[in-house]
């Protein structure tokens, strides 16, 4: 077997294993409470009957590992359990909301990724001169503000002072793409701003690192134009670090979505998760946690796979 195939297969297997371990950790995270979970959920005023009901519903009379395997078995069959708060099927709820979340996140990603890479390249090309400094200063300020505050600033400016977009991002299946895009204009912009700063800075650092290599000097001494040096000689070697940067930031974006959805009351996974954390609705929290972890692990795995594929030493072994 070609070593690259082997490495990629190993990495995917590792990702699966990691996801399995993460499911254990998420399950354990809701069990670490020293006392009685049912008591914690219902509070001190709960009646003994209500407590007993909840215990039975959560299967608390069984040992934790059995409950874990039952949960895992359910998850593998698409059964994520039922909400404690309203008894709804969690899987069904998540399906619709996941679509919304992915729509918001991918809208942001489609804008942010090319912009970040382009700005990173411009920064490198004009390193230390004014374009670099301006980009650096602007991105430093956007990464220094938490995403929910950026959300309210934009809302204040563009939904209240100069109303060009709605302050509440409502979407439903009856809306056309354009209407949907208009609805998510502000939340998507927030995500772009937040992730752009990190991505651009990391891209800049990754390319600069490559630009310091001796082979870049070789290219310069060949009389090649600066932009051509970057594209022909730096870029092929920067692919793997840049892809890594992009993936890390996409993973970050998936998390940033949680908060931004709350700000704009967007009907996605994040809003769902936060609402049910406050209600101490353990099955929903576990299910949402697992979905977010799966996306996060998947993106990181993809980054590693692309790095492996982009490495000439691995692709063309001796």
């Amino acid at each position, binding site marked *: 077997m070609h070593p690259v195939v082997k490495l990629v297969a190993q990495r995917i297997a590792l990702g699966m294993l990691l996801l399995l371990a993460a499911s254990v950790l998420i399950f354990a995270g809701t069990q670490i409470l020293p006392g009685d979970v049912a008591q914690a959920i219902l509070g001190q005023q709960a009646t003994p009957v209500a407590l007993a009901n909840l215990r039975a519903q959560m299967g608390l009379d069984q040992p934790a590992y059995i409950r874990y395997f039952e949960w895992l078995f359910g998850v593998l069959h698409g059964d994520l359990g039922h909400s404690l708060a309203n008894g709804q099927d969690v899987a069904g709820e998540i399906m619709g909301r996941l679509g919304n979340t992915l729509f918001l996140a991918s809208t942001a990603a489609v804008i942010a990724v090319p912009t970040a890479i382009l700005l990173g390249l411009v920064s490198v090309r004009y390193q230390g001169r004014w374009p670099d400094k301006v980009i650096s200063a602007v991105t430093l300020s956007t990464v220094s503000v938490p995403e929910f505050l950026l959300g309210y600033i934009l809302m204040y400016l563009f939904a209240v002072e100069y109303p060009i977009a709605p302050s509440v991002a409502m979407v439903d299946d009856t809306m056309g793409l354009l209407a949907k895009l208009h609805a998510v204009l502000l939340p998507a912009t927030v995500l772009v701003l937040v992730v752009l700063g990190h991505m651009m800075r990391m891209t800049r650092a990754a390319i600069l690192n490559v630009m310091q290599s*001796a082979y870049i000097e*070789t290219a310069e001494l060949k009389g*090649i134009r600066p932009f051509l040096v970057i594209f022909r*000689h730096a870029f092929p070697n920067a692919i793997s670090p840049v892809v890594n940067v992009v993936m890390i930031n996409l993973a970050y974006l998936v998390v940033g979505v949680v908060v931004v959805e709350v700000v704009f009351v967007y009907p996605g996974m994040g809003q769902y998760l936060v609402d049910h954390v406050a209600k101490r609705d353990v099955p929903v929290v576990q299910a949402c946690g697992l979905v977010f972890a799966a996306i996060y692990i998947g993106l990181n795995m993809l980054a590693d796979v692309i790095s492996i594929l982009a490495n*000439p030493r691995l692709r063309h072994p001796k």
Partner: protein
Amino acid sequence: MAEALLEIRDLKIEATSYPPGERPRDVVLVDGVSLTLQKGRVLGLIGESGAGKSTIGLSAMAYGRGGVRLTGGTIRLRGDEIRTASAAGLRAIRGQRVTYVAQSAAAAFNPAKKLMEQVIETTLLHGLASRTEAEARAVALFAKLGLPNPDTFGQRFPHQVSGGQLQRAMTAMALCPKPDLVIFDEPTTALDVTTQIDVLAAIKEAIRDTGVGALYITHDLAVVAQVSDDIMVLRHGKMVEYGSVDQIINAPREAYTQALISVRQMEHPEKPAEAPVVLSVGQVTARYRGTHFDVLKNVSVDLRAGQTLAVVGESGSGKSTLARAITGLLPPRSGTIRFAGRELSRDLAGRSKDDLRELQMIYQMADVAMNPRHTVGQIIGRPLEFYFGLKGAAKQTRIQQLLDEIEMGRGFADRYPAELSGGQKQRVCIARALAAKPRLIICDEVTSALDPLVADGILKLLLDLQKVEGVAYLFITHDLATVKAIADSIAVMYRGAVVRYGAKSDVLAPPYDDYTDLLLSSVPEMRLGWLEEVIASRRMESAGN
């Protein structure tokens, strides 16, 4: 007289230095250097580190590395002033009329592109030939430079070929656009000596056949004597002496040039094999964890008290691994190590404090062998405190004694390593080893990173200390001149095994085994025509076989 290919007048090169804790200031790297190079001639630029030779070499492309500025003088290429040329004008010169061969081809080739792509890139970019023509030209150059399978060689990636081959490929890359001038910047310095001779011969032949002019930059006078027509000796950015190769080698006028020529010609009389054996390595075999290959194979050597055993070999010969096995860092799989009459535990953890104290080590890179956050006094003082419990005034007195012994005098105890020169750093490391009052010091390539004159100073110091302290050295090196200067006995290592071992006079006298013969005959000698003689005699031998 025809117009000179390259004419540099009163060149001044500056850079901004950022010393820690001070304001940035401008420093002059090269001052008032002038030279003339005619078409088809080779000018050697020679000097120690900091002489400005690479900086001058790159100025022929009007290139300043990392913020270096060409601030004065004229640089004319075929009469065209290039120092003040525009960026577009420079692009037309670089890679087309003037090309460059770097010291480390392994780093200078782009790892993501096939060799052929890179070799013909400039030729295509500057529109000098069609792709087919360029590739044919490259293949012809690969063949001329003695690369294996020249037709398919270019289809490989840089990491798929050896260091010596990469260096030749880089030469092919420089010659492919048919430039007027090639700058060779220490092209053989990173290579093993037996590889260097082939690359050197290939480069020389290629220069002669293509008729290009060349600047050949090196710190090794013996190398430059083989390839140059003229030599310029540089020091601290200024010219010391400039003349024909014959005059510089055979009749140097300046004291500095004379010192460079006489360097590395120290001879050390061999001590008789009378003293008791202090270290006895018996049948040691070792491999690194997780590998399935012995890096040491049944190595047996003895070292007598107060004497020096030189372990010589090229990269990958296992000579440094032997040091790690003896110190206990790499416990051998089998074999014994006897030291001062007792058998040493194989791994570090099992050794007594006295075992550790009596067996000290000095490293190649003094820079990273000293904690940058400790002062010289702390560095030398620690073994005194650790092994002998010295404190306060007694410790300070002993530190000063040791500093005197390494000829560094007062005022150094409070300095940090970063404030010392390379030679001084290595001296401090020697003092730290001596502080333990060892019976044996393992010296791992301790002079390899130093300029020749400084290295000579360190060797002399080590020899003097041996007389005074009676300490034995296990001296690991790849350099035969160093071996001659310091050894009493020699072990030649090749691929993990000792292939020749004995007293210096025996090892360095014929009849030789094949490898020792190859090794000895590959060391450049400081005389004209040496390269041709060796190559001719090797061709005759192989024809005879």
